[in-house]
């Protein structure tokens, strides 16, 4: 393990009774990277995060953060990371400022340093105006911001974010993305979990897709998209009576399975240059098209292709 590695997970397994919530998962995260754990409800994302942050003892496997074994040196490891869990971990009985002061003092800052850092974070997360109000009056978004602010008190090298944008409105989500990018620019390594494919696509350098506790796929968003049937060509004919003729033609040119729904025809497209041939032949046959579209595979496609039960695959 070299100094460029922030997190190393080897054959990590967690069993609750007979049920393996996490099953032989391995991955490595480089320093300064955003790593996304992507998976549906109950996939095992939170369980993985808990094992990486010393909150849950693995059934087997090892986890190292910056070279320190999570189980052998939990104290060292705890000093390395900040954690924002899936549910807000703020003290409801205290104000935002009191929360920050309390955690700063626990983390070993002096009273004066704690005050200064609290003010900085309150500013950074636009919580100054409400800093001394009881948390009951906070909105969900404000609570999440405070939660994140608390995890950043000591400017940790590794930051865990368990579903940081679930339940946020689109604008607040954008702000959260900005914050995450800023943290990485400042040198942090980020491990986040999400159910949103676009989020992993927009933020992460590496995406691990988790389903039923297993790592089904690991790679850059681009590589994952390449794995799934690449691009798709979408044609809409103007006249429904010509749809079948168009379907046969596209199939002959692209040599790929073609789907037709009403006036729309869809096929996988491996070489973009084939589009010219298709268009030429359509013109020769006198088939008029209303629309043409080339769709890049989204992470959604990757996700469904990888996590769907193998039995439900469409017959070719």
């Amino acid at each position, binding site marked *: 393990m070299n100094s460029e590695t922030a997190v190393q997970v080897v054959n990590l397994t967690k069993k609750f009774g007979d049920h393996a919530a996490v099953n032989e998962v391995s991955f490595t995260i480089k320093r300064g990277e955003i790593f996304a754990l992507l998976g549906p409800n109950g996939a095992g994302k939170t369980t993985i995060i*808990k094992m990486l*942050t*010393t*909150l*849950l003892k693995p059934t087997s496997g090892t986890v190292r953060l910056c070279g320190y074994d999570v189980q052998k040196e939990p*104290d*060292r490891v*705890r*000093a390395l*990371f900040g*954690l924002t*869990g899936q*549910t*807000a*971990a*703020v*003290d*409801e*009985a*205290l104000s935002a400022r*009191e929360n920050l002061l*309390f*955690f700063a*003092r*626990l*983390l*070993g800052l002096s009273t004066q340093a704690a005050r200064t850092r609290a003010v900085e974070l309150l500013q950074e997360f636009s919580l100054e105006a409400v800093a001394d109000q*009881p948390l009951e009056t906070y909105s969900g978004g404000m609570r999440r911001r405070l939660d994140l602010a*608390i*995890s950043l008190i000591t400017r940790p090298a590794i930051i865990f974010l368990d579903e940081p944008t679930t339940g946020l409105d689109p604008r607040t989500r954008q702000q959260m993305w900005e914050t995450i990018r800023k943290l990485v620019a400042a040198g942090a390594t980020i491990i986040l979990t999400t159910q949103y494919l676009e989020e992993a696509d927009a933020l992460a350098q590496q995406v691990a897709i988790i389903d039923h506790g297993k790592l089904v796929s690991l790679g850059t968003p681009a590589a994952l998209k390449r794995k799934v049937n690449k691009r798709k060509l979408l044609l809409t004919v103007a006249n429904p009576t010509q749809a079948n003729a168009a379907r046969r033609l596209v199939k002959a040119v692209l040599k790929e399975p073609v789907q037709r729904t009403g006036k729309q025809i869809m096929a996988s497209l491996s070489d973009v240059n084939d589009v010219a041939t298709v268009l030429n032949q359509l013109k020769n046959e006198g088939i008029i098209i209303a629309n043409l579209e080339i769709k890049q595979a989204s992470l959604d496609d990757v996700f469904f292709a990888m996590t769907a039960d193998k039995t439900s695959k469409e017959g070719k």
Partner: protein
Amino acid sequence: MQNLRKHLWRLLANTRTLAYRNLLKTWHNPDQLLDVVVQPVLFMLMFSYLFGGAIAGSVHNYLPTLVPGILMQALLAAATGSGSLINEDLQQGVFQRIKALPISRLAPLLGQLVADSLRLLLAATAAIVTGYLIGWRPAAGFQWVIIVVGLDIFLGWTLSWIFVLYGLLAKRATMVESMSLMTMLILIFLSNAFVPVHTLPPLVRFLVKINPVSYVITASRTMLNHGYWSTSAWVVLLAGIVVLLLFIPLTVFVYNRKD
């Protein structure tokens, strides 16, 4: 050695911060102190005026028996509160965050229990002051009142650890409350706190005699009324220490195992 000192220093600092947080919570939300103070006042008034005549001939004659009983009862009631408080804390997400911090593993529980000793002190003060106001005077002098309050608070504090263990093991705060209330009622009413033991049927008398609370109350009465530190007092002190030695490691272990 260096390492041990560092750990101890950190334990103290963390405990202070966590205790401060608990006090701050109480400061924001003082009504949780209400029953701790109101209960001993109410019980002292009701018991003395309702049963004083029947049990001891007059209210005034009953007070030397009653005050140590109510004092212990108040402390037991305050101690049960620790269990529900810790359980409430566990339900909150903040518990997860505290556990993932590089702090001493003992500090979260110790922090709460240090803050709780203040509640115990408040309960004891309420009991003693009410007793004084309705005419009770400690025969052996006030220095013995301080010693008795000290011993009783120590015992209440050790019992807090047991109630905290309840709080950690129970699923819901309401369950902790009812279990604690039941334990408290049995301990206090099946003792010599309010009634003379010789009037009881043999089986009940046996139960009362083996009840640890009876020892505390006997010891308190001896000190308050006759001014000396009896064997019962030693038994109480020793029992308290044994409970601490047993329950602190056990409770800390359970706390750190929770997820």
